């Protein structure tokens, strides 16, 4: 049965309409055209209609929007074999070029505003998107691959950030720790430990992975709900230690207490690499129009995210990844096939923690400080929501979920409520109370962001429980697990 015919009533109705207005045999004539033509024309027709409607209603399409549409259309026309590589390649190229596009003084010439969502996210938001995507991909190894529900992932995020703070800040000065290994941007006459960020990232990852093992060993004997509760507890313990690890409570200053630790050294490649390879010596000292410290943070974060994704995919297809999925499917059978349960689960935990640590360390150096209030239970749930929304087990889905939710959190909700306030609601900005969700005929959606994410998750669970871009296996589970397979194909019989 052709996919076109099952394409639905709209398609059939369209042909009936065309034949109704006198185009005899329009359908048969169309379907006898060469396939490439059949593929190439429909998007053009749709685009013409959309652009025509936009023009008629007084909207001038931006050159950027048209450029993007042309790129999409070009990708659409490519043969399937090439498209498989061309689509990720194009997305990657756009991601790399993004700072150059958005930092234009003439924004409208290169980019465009989207209805409701307004302008594209700033680079600051993009850095956060990359950081959260890294964490979501890490959590996906635990939840998506191995099927272990972890409600305390924020612990690894915090541990990574604090490791960065310990290894690259003046924090250790009072206790006599003075050590410099490639750190950049150290003020004159300041002591403390200053290790190069690239070593810090690795160190943070290893410390956090070790932390994952320490937390994992006692907890991973538990299953399902019990595991979730205990991980939740560990997440809270780490956050509380961060909050209370100061001199008054511990006798020595471990975490700086409520104000946290700052400043953390900025990233950079140091003088030697700067003079010999032209890499930026200190990110904070760069202040060009296009290549400035935010875009450098962004490109590095993007690089780290790509490494994370690469590792995640390699692991999934390895012997260990198979063992994780087997454990997720059936623990008893997995053990009977020679998979050591504790060890394998602990590896899942440690791998997930590893990338959480990298993300945390990068976040710390981006914010140039760690603050215990950044690490609360809500973050664990937020990252878990990204995994669920995107599609548990599928790396690309998880990245998409992370991008979407992080964007909403830092910009999207504010943009959307602004759109509602100017276009839909009788909003009077002067009488709006910024502390209230609804006041003076205006809404302030970011105040109830958690509720909105909750609603999104409920919506996804009802409409598309496997997530936006589901893992192939899970999709199968959701598709065939719920409905019975009909004995013969009744649906097609009914359609004829």
């Amino acid at each position, binding site marked *: 049965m052709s996919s076109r015919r099952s394409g639905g009533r709209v398609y059939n109705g369209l042909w009936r309409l065309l034949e109704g207005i006198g185009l005899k045999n329009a359908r048969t004539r169309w379907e006898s055209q060469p396939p490439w033509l059949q593929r190439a024309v429909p998007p053009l027709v749709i685009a013409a209609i959309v652009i025509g409607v936009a023009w008629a209603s007084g909207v001038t399409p931006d050159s950027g929007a048209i450029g993007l549409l042309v790129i999409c259309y070009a990708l659409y026309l490519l043969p399937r074999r090439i498209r498989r590589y061309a689509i990720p390649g194009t997305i990657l190229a756009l991601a790399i070029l993004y700072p150059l596009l958005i930092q234009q003084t003439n924004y409208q010439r290169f980019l465009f505003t989207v209805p409701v969502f307004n302008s594209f996210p700033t680079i600051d938001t993009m850095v956060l998107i990359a950081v959260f995507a890294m964490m979501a991909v890490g959590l996906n190894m635990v939840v998506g691959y191995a099927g272990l529900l972890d409600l305390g992932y924020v612990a690894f995020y915090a541990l990574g950030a604090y490791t960065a703070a310990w290894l690259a800040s003046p924090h250790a000065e009072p206790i006599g720790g003075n050590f410099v290994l490639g750190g950049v941007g150290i003020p004159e006459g300041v002591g403390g430990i200053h290790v190069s960020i690239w070593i810090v990232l690795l160190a943070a990852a290893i410390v956090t992975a070790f932390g994952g093992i320490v937390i994992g060993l006692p907890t991973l004997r538990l299953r399902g709900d019990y595991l979730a509760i205990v991980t939740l507890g560990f997440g809270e313990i780490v956050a509380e230690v961060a909050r209370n690890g100061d001199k008054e409570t511990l006798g020595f200053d471990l975490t700086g207490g409520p104000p946290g630790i700052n400043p953390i050294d900025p990233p950079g490649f140091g003088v030697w690499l700067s003079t010999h390879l032209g890499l930026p010596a200190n990110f904070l000292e760069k202040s060009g129009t296009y290549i400035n410290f935010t875009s450098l943070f962004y490109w590095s974060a993007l690089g780290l995210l790509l490494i994370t994704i*690469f590792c995640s995919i390699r*692991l999934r297809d390895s012997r260990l990844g198979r063992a994780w999925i087997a454990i997720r499917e059936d623990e008893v059978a997995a053990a009977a*096939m020679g998979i050591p349960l504790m060890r394998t689960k602990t*590896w899942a935990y440690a791998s997930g923690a590893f990338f959480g640590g990298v993300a945390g360390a990068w976040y710390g150096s981006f914010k140039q400080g760690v603050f215990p209030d950044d690490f609360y239970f809500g973050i664990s749930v937020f990252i878990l929501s990204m995994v669920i929304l995107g599609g548990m087990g599928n790396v690309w889905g998880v990245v998409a979920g992370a991008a979407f939710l992080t964007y909403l959190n830092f910009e999207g909700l504010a943009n959307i409520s602004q759109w509602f306030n100017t276009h839909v609601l009788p909003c009077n900005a002067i009488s709006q109370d910024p502390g209230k969700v609804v006041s003076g005929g205006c809404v302030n959606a970011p105040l109830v962001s958690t509720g909105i994410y909750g609603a999104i998750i409920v919506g996804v669970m009802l409409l598309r429980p496997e997530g936006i871009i589901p893992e192939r296996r899970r999709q199968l589970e959701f598709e065939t697990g719920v409905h019975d397979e009909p004995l013969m194909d009744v649906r097609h019989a009914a359609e004829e």
Partner: protein
Amino acid sequence: MAVDLLLETVALRKEFGGLVAVSDVDFTIPRGSIVSLIGPNGAGKTTFFNMITGVYKPTDGRVIFDGEDIGGKPPHAATERGIGRTFQNIRLFQQMTALENVLVGMHSRLRGHIVPSILGLPRVRREEREARERARELLEYCDIPGHEDDYARNLAYGDQRRLEVARALATRPKLLLLDEPTAGMNPQETLEFVDFIFKLREDEKLTILLIEHDMKLVMGVSDRITVLDYGEKIAEGQAQDVQKDARVIEAYLGKAAVS
């Protein structure tokens, strides 16, 4: 008479609370033989099985496999030492393909670990390639060719049963434990399965322990039969002897059948 024993249990016992599920069972499997364990429902067969494979920890007694006491060791340790098993109710990894199921079975025979796998070292790549090759051969050997990329849940019932065996064989067992392998099969499929068991012993030099309900099958293939009832061994011997044993008949058919 020194018989080469692959498996020996000594006074193996399992209690669940006050219930004695398996009561001090002495049991041996000579290398290269096909031994069956039968008994009515609830006789403790599967519990016994689970103690050998490490799923349950014995309350008392020893499990000696290939000269080593493995009682109380976790299941993966038993598998590493060469005990492969299938399950009474099929427990395949439903959301994995047939090939992946077999590859999971090879887990303890492969070495590729986390960092080499991420780096994609040639050694790991070669190992993976060879594992896939061997997995395909196993699928063919177990008569499920052409389904390697099908999800296990989409296979026909008989194919699922055979895939379980293929997966167990992938662990390179010395001893293969089959828990009611012909449950739900029709007589024709059961006959084919009997041939398959003989083929396994011939080709792979396997020792096989069979738990079965199907008396006809058991009588036909077993070198020796052990009968459990209420957790106790009530008879042991060759098929025709066990068949005539009064306690066995009583256990299966009730007291009236004996008198």
